[in-house]
């Protein structure tokens, strides 16, 4: 346990070059963290495109006419709550508590699916009203940005189902725990991207 080396005050005493390679969990976590940052840079490009094109509505409907803030607020609550339940689920994985893990992760799954369902409803309503991605540059940028986020959430849900099956099959093997841990990071990062989406796209609509 880390408590022993900390209480002995050895933390700074051993030079970094003498300590050997870092444990797999740290390396995997750091590598996945770098992936997430590159994913956020991908989103930054879509955000930049949206910011440039947001007023190019080609005489069609503008954001202020299309967006329903109440709907977006409920979506935001779903995703925020699912981030917290995912956090509690990760804690349950860390203490290998299968029952709590299952409850929290299924809650995450349901909330994430609710979010995705609400987004699909919104998109299909917009397309049905003639405000599809081909209507204007503004709508192309909107569907590219929000759609990419939705795609990430959808893939995250598939990943979560796979992880639940892996826990069922392999138990709390360190490999499974590591993957679960990366899933948690992924889910929290998606929630951070969503803050940008609702602030810039929905609340900044004009």
């Amino acid at each position, binding site marked *: 346990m880390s408590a022993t080396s900390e209480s002995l005050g050895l933390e700074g005493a051993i030079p970094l070059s003498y300590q050997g390679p870092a444990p797999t969990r*740290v390396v995997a976590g*750091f590598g996945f963290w770098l992936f997430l940052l590159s994913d956020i840079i991908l989103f930054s490009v879509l955000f930049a495109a949206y910011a440039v094109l947001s007023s190019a509505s080609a005489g069609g409907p503008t954001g202020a006419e299309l967006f329903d803030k109440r709907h977006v607020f409920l979506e935001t609550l779903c995703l925020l709550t699912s981030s917290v339940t995912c956090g509690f689920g990760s804690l349950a994985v860390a203490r290998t508590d299968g029952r709590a893990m299952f409850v929290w992760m299924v809650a995450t799954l349901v909330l994430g699916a609710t979010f995705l369902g609400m987004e699909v409803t919104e998109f299909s309503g917009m397309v049905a009203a003639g405000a599809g991605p081909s209507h204007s540059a503004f709508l192309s940028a909107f569907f590219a940005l929000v759609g990419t986020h939705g795609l990430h959430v959808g893939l995250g849900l598939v990943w979560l189902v796979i992880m639940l099956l892996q826990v069922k099959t392999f138990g709390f093997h360190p490999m499974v725990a590591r993957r679960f841990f990366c899933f948690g990071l992924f889910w929290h990062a998606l929630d951070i991207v969503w803050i940008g989406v609702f602030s810039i796209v929905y609340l900044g609509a004009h």
Partner: protein
Amino acid sequence: MQSSAPAQGHAPGVATRTGHLGRSYLIGLGFALVLTVASFWASSTPLVYPRALPILIAVLAVAQMGVHVSFFLHISSAPDQTNNLLALAFGVFITALVVFGSLLIMSNLNHNMVSMDQLMQMQR
């Protein structure tokens, strides 16, 4: 837990003392809820001066991102987190460069562009 090689760095998302983690998610949820409600409220109330609204929403969004990073992802300025924090700083730098750079270049191009009426007259 096997994540405890002290000075070799820490994976993001792992806090040193696991007992405090559950509370950290709840505190984070509280802050995030307050900030979310504040930004939705600010965007729909007539009380806020309209031209200041984008700045207010941006400030609230950055604050909420900070809450998520520190309370959910558990990134901190602790010495064993230097790698994570540096990577984050680089990511934020590139993001700012892409977004503000695009806006600057495109508004400059837009400013320099000949308007459609003038273009029609030149072709006549």
